[in-house]
């Protein structure tokens, strides 16, 4: 229950003054009478009585006085029109004063007050709206609060004939429309000023006469009204009232409009009255008497009588009847009586209506006055008879005739209050068109009355009037108090949106600022601090809705710009240029719900708009603020440089290639030179004095709009310089006049830099002028690594100092430029030898004495030193010595002495040739580091050169080998050379075999000639051991020793294998290999062997390969096929490796067994064990441990056909069997047994032979020895015979004189049997 009713519910009294009274007051510098009387409201200490005669004390009792004529006019005005005028009037008032309000409010810290729940402080704009709405005093058709309760007819004794004046006024009935409650108290007031023509006695007589004629409701008010008006006395502020309609005021010009401007006010905004003390007391007495003696009793009386009627209708029979009538569909109107019909208070209602009412034609028979029940409820409310009031209001509400709007004020807080509120609003909404001014004003009035705890937008609708905006702002204000900040932000935003349309900018800006501030306050979250720590995030770093802040800030910026605060506008627009974080996020947040695109007006929210606004406002600011414009506080919120991708590029870097690869080339050089001297290799990555280098600045535009950056450059500092000024003076930096970056575009901008003296430079900043307006700079520092060294560093985030891009500039004394002369696309055939020319130029200032070339381990190349091979007659075969080492090739020195004869002087240049062998098919790169120095200089420099080429396949070579059937040779080696279908016509010029042990010869002594595309050629070769072979045993021992070390796990010493002599046989024609070819063959063999070893012995460390494995296996045979393509002028060779002839004897088996049986050291890592066993397996399966049966038996003349005349005798056929020991080292004992007569086996359909003579042969075969066995086959009939189930037992061992009975130690035993049929056919040639 409210402690005090809103003043707008107070009884409304109209005053009809006579003209003489109006003149009197005007002459005494007093406002019109209603205003004077209003100054005495509220009245203190008034007691009313309820219908049950219980007294109700009112600490204050509000009254409302107004001019009758004004009210009559107001009633005649169209309600909608008046409501619209009201809204405009309030808007104008707010608009006029809001700037001052906002200033004052912010000065007292209004925003802070909001949160402190200080209920006493009210926002001035809301107060204004409240007062304006409260001040409404024109009767409404919907409710009866403003309907006049009393009419005071006032005259003064200054009138020539006061009685006549009174009679005239009384004769004039109030010209109210029919819907205004005509039930009014008539009261007569006679003002008797001191300077009146009538004496006090005469005035008394007049008073008595009037009392006699017009009843007891009469009062004589004597006033002093001194001639110079007394000093003003402050009185309560009058509620502002809507100015009268200008059209209607012209009709009654005699009555001054009651506008706030007419009220004399003090500078402090107080209302004053220039009345003397005695006059005030007199007037107060009148007001009190009027209320206590007339108005309240009259109202009480009405309430009692109406209550009688009300209760009588509520009694049971009546209710029964009424419900019966309702049930039976009677058309009788509701029994609630209206005053027109029920004139029980005849004395006061007799003058309510008159014929003059019909002069208001439109309302003559118009709507009825408010129902009596409603008036009863209103009177009861006003009189404080709340019990009755609530009862009656509830009844009215149940009948659907209103009441919901008042009940929330009377009831104690409960959920029902909210229902009443929403019902009241619904009624307002439905009874009027949705956004009519009447509905708005009404809703506002309700809102003003309720003040708190309701949903403003429900009754605002789409209204765009400032009062509704202020109401929203008040809702926001209240929401903040309820700690609903997010909702408050929304209300403020809505309020601002509405106010903006009315052009009330200061308040709009204030609301937007509030919305902004409130949105920024993120709600408290009861989360553990570790939640944020876990991901290393700041508590405030979470991203919310992405469009809210830009939306508000843009509006704020625009408002600031239009109000002339360009500087702040610029700042707002600048902060908006944030750019979308990521494209997919933008898509997600744009949100197309249910598949259909939401029509979002993106135009107001895009970077393009922001940028354009910024450009315009900034340009304006620049134009208006003159040259001394301080830009230091304007910082771009976006960065355009992608520091992490920005690089320094030196002239030598343009060759490209993998940095690790170049690093390894330099390491190769350092390893090589370590044994030669102490001079160091200076790493590349230094720029030279007076030579440009580049900073590749990566620029990315995060905005969704094209931008331009003018005067883009970088700022460079010297490492020793302390100053933070611009770039050092000895460095020239390129400046790019204008750079346009498209939306979301990334560009790499090379900026050239040239230093004039050696130094260390740091590239610290990029600077540019954004849009050619805002000079700006960006740091190019990358944050240092996070430090983890001390506990303090680990517990908090500590980073190393920022890292800048560093450029070293050195003297250009030693500079070399190396390039390939021909840099076109290079396509080579597999195995082709290509001559390439390199151009070397000394661009430094000192002579260069030494140049080395460091290439990769797999690159096969030779530097052509200009030597021409001597033409000597070709020998039968060639012999050369190989180092037999797998070691990587050393850097090659360019023979400057031979090529130039002198050091390379500054400015001098020369060319030299390089032969490249294309050993691998596919896309290849030749990356060479060229290392050079001036003689005896302590440092080497290097430069990089790279050449890409493609290698196409040309020939495919397959080789097959095995024991030869031919007695003249030990092994046969068959080559199948096939040309690739896409190849050109190839000429095979030479086939050369190389082996430390074997001498190979072609069995077909002829030229192979040309090979058409897709054609194949077969080349059979025979191999015999070379009797002058040397170095094989040492090599074998070396390898076995090293492998034993590996297996035993002892440290491998880094000794290299002994040299080996190689024999070269040319199969096709005799020729001499040039010395460069020997080098190529060595490199080729090395690459193949290294690849093979790396594939097989995967678990051995790579750097140990040269120390373990020799380059050549002593029994290996390499085949080199030389080819030419005469049509294209190409030539080359293909090396085929991997052939090992001769029987091995598993020489490592003993060591392997030892290693297996070795006491296994326990190791905690299973991986180590697995690795060991895999090493063991790899060695067991390697070529160094091969083991085969060395003895092979072949049937000479198998498939022979023997003719015999069986008519004379059976046939005896001598069969020659060849038995050969293929071992190069070991003797073998053999036992050959032929089967005696055996039945034909089911296996073969050939006849089993029977042998005669010696069936068992025994003996010993020395290494490489061969012998012939000649058993005799006995054929009894013509047939095809096999050799049958012969058996050959072999024992491989050593002849050791000291051990065993016969000085023989058997190592391996083998048993051989027939594997091929080897048929012998006997044909009977008897003539019968």
């Amino acid at each position, binding site marked *: 229950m409210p402690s005090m009713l809103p003043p707008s519910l107070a009884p409304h009294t109209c005053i009809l003054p006579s003209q003489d009274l109006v003149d009197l007051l005007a002459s005494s510098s007093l406002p019109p009478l209603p205003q004077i009387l209003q100054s005495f409201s509220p009245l203190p200490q008034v007691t009313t009585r309820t219908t049950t005669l219980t007294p109700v004390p009112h600490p204050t009792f509000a009254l409302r006085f107004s001019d009758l004529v004004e009210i009559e006019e107001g009633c005649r005005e169209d309600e909608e029109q008046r409501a619209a005028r009201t809204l405009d009037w309030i808007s104008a008032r707010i608009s006029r004063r809001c700037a001052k309000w906002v200033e004052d409010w912010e000065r007292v810290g209004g925003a802070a007050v909001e949160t402190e729940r200080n209920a006493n402080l009210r926002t001035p704009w809301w107060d204004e709206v409240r007062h304006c709405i409260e001040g409404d005093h024109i009767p409404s058709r919907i409710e009866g609060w403003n309907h006049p309760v009393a009419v005071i007819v006032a005259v003064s004794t200054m009138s020539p004939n006061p009685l006549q004046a009174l009679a005239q006024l009384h004769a004039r009935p109030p010209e109210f429309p029919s819907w205004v409650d005509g039930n009014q108290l008539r009261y007569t007031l006679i003002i008797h000023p001191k300077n009146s023509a009538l004496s006090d006695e005469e005035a008394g007589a007049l008073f008595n006469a009037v009392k006699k004629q017009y009843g007891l409701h009469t009062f004589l008010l004597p006033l002093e009204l001194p001639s110079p008006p007394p000093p003003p006395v402050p009185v309560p502020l009058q509620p502002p009232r809507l100015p009268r309609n200008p059209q209607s005021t012209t009709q009654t010009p005699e009555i001054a409009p009651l506008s706030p401007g007419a009220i004399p006010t003090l500078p402090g905004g107080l209302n004053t009255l220039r009345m003397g003390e005695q006059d005030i007391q007199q007037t107060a007495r009148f007001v009190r008497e009027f209320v206590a003696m007339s108005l309240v009793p009259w109202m009480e009386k009405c309430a009692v009588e109406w209550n009688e009627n009300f209760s009588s209708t509520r009694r049971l029979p009546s209710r029964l009847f009424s419900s019966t009538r309702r049930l039976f569909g009677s058309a009788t109107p509701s029994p609630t009586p209206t005053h027109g019909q029920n004139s029980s208070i005849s004395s006061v209602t007799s003058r309510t209506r008159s014929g003059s009412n019909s002069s208001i034609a439109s309302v003559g028979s118009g709507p009825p006055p408010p129902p009596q029940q409603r008036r009863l409820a209103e009177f009861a409310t006003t009189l404080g008879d709340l019990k009755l009031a609530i009862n009656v209001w509830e009844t009215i509400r149940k009948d659907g005739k209103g009441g919901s709007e008042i009940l929330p004020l009377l009831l104690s807080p409960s959920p029902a209050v909210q229902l009443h509120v929403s019902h009241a609003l619904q009624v307002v909404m439905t009874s009027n068109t949705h956004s009519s001014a009447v509905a708005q004003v009404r809703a506002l009035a309700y809102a003003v009355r309720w003040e708190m705890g309701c949903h403003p937008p429900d009754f605002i609708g789409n209204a765009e009037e400032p009062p509704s905006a202020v109401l929203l702002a008040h809702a926001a204000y209240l929401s903040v108090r309820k700690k609903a900040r997010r909702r408050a*932000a929304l209300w403020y935003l809505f309020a601002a949106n509405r106010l903006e349309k009315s052009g009330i900018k200061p308040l709009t800006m204030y609301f937007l600022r509030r919305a902004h501030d409130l949105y920024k306050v993120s709600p408290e979250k009861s989360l553990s601090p570790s939640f944020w720590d876990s991901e290393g995030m700041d508590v405030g770093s979470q991203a919310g809705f992405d469009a809210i802040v830009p939306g508000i800030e843009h509006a704020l910026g625009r408002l600031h710009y239009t109000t002339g605060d360009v500087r702040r506008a610029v700042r707002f627009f600048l902060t908006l240029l944030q750019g979308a974080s990521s494209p997919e996020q933008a898509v997600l947040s744009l949100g197309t*719900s249910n598949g259909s695109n939401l029509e979002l007006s993106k135009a107001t929210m895009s970077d393009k708009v922001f940028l354009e606004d910024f450009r315009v406002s900034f340009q304006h600011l620049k134009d208006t603020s003159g040259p001394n414009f301080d830009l230091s506080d304007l910082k771009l919120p976006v960065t355009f440089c992608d520091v992490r991708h920005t690089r320094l590029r030196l002239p030598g870097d343009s060759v490209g290639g993998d940095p690790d690869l170049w690093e390894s080339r330099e390491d190769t050089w350092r390893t090589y030179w370590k044994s030669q001297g102490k001079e160091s290799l200076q790493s590349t990555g230094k720029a030279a004095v007076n030579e440009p280098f580049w900073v590749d600045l990566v620029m990315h535009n995060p905005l969704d709009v094209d931008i331009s950056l003018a005067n883009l450059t970088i700022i460079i500092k010297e490492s020793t310089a302390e100053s933070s000024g611009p770039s050092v003076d000895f460095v020239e930096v390129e400046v790019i006049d204008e750079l346009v970056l498209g939306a979301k575009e990334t560009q790499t901008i090379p900026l050239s830099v040239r230093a004039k003296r050696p130094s260390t430079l740091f590239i610290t900043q990029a600077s540019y002028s954004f849009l050619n307006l805002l000079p700006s700079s960006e740091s190019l520092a990358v944050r240092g690594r996070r430090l983890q060294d001390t506990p303090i560093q680990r517990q908090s985030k500590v980073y190393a100092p920022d890292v800048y891009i560093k450029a070293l500039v050195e003297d250009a004394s030693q500079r070399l430029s190396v390039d390939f002369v021909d840099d076109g696309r290079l396509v080579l055939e597999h195995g082709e030898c290509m001559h390439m020319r390199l151009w070397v130029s000394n661009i430094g200032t000192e002579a260069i004495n030494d140049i080395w070339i460091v290439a990769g381990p797999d690159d096969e190349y030779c530097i052509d030193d200009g030597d021409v091979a001597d033409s000597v007659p070709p020998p039968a075969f060639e012999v050369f010595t190989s180092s037999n080492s797998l070691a990587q090739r050393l850097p090659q020195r360019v023979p400057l002495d031979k090529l130039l004869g002198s050091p390379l002087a500054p400015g001098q240049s020369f060319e030299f040739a390089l032969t490249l062998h294309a050993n691998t098919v596919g896309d290849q790169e030749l990356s060479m580091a060229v290392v050079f120095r001036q003689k005896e200089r302590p440092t080497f420099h290097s430069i990089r050169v790279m050449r890409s080429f493609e290698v196409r396949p040309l020939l495919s070579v397959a080789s097959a080998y095995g024991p030869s059937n031919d007695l003249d040779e030990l092994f046969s080696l068959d080559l199948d050379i096939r040309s690739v279908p896409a190849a050109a016509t190839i000429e095979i010029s030479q086939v050369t075999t190389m082996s430390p042990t074997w001498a190979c010869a072609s069995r077909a002594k002829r030229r192979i000639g040309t090979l058409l595309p897709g054609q194949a050629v077969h080349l059979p070769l025979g191999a015999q051991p070379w009797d002058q072979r040397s170095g094989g045993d040492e090599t074998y021992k070396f390898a076995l020793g090293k492998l034993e070390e590996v297996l035993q796990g002892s440290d491998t010493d880094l000794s290299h294998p002994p040299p080996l002599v190689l024999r070269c046989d040319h199969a096709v024609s005799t020729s001499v290999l040039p010395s460069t070819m020997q080098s190529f063959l060595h490199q080729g063999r090395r690459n193949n062997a290294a690849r093979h070893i790396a594939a097989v012995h995967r678990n051995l460390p790579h750097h140990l390969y040269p120390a373990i494995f020799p380059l050549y296996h002593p029994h290996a045979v390499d085949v080199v096929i030389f080819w030419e393509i005469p049509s294209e002028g190409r030539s080359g060779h293909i090396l085929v490796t991997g052939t090992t002839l001769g029987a091995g004897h598993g020489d490592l088996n003993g060591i392997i067994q030892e290693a297996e049986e070795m006491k296994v050291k326990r190791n905690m890592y299973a991986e180590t064990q697995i690795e060991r066993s895999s090493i063991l397996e790899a060695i067991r399966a390697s070529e160094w441990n091969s083991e085969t049966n060395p003895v092979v038996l072949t049937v000479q003349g198998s498939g022979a056909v023997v003719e015999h005349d069986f008519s004379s005798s059976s046939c005896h056929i001598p069969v020659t069997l060849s038995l050969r020991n293929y071992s190069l080292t070991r003797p073998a004992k053999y036992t050959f047994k032929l089967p005696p007569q055996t039945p034909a086996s089911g296996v073969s359909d050939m006849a089993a032979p029977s042998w005669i003579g010696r069936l068992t042969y025994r003996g010993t075969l020395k290494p490489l020895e061969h012998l012939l066995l000649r058993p005799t086959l006995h054929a009894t009939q013509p047939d095809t015979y096999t050799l049958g189930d012969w058996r050959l037992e072999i024992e491989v061992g050593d002849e050791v004189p000291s051990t065993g009975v016969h000085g023989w130690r058997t190592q391996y035993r083998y048993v051989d049997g027939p594997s091929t049929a080897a048929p012998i056919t006997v044909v009977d040639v008897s003539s019968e």
Partner: protein
Amino acid sequence: MGGGQDRHVIQMIANASLDVIEEVVRKDNAMYLKSVDKFNEWTVSAFITPGNMKFVLLHEGKNDEGIRAFFSDVWELYVKTTMNPFHTAHSGIRSTVFDTRVRASARKHL
């Protein structure tokens, strides 16, 4: 406000409805809060996961069952996304799969 089509206004509405949702959640332990709030033509429905993650949907028409089905689809997708070991509670969901599936569900139910 002209229908409140500005993107930031729509986001503000969604943001403001969180106040009401939090208030309702204190009393009501249902996961699906249908029409929990209303702003002009926009109705706000919400869904609160057991982990207190709030899904907010602004819609115009009335389609309780469809919205309920949509929310449970989104919840399932959300749970699957959060089960990704590379997803943290600190970062937004940027999965395009999630996005397409939510859209597909919206097309189906809304």
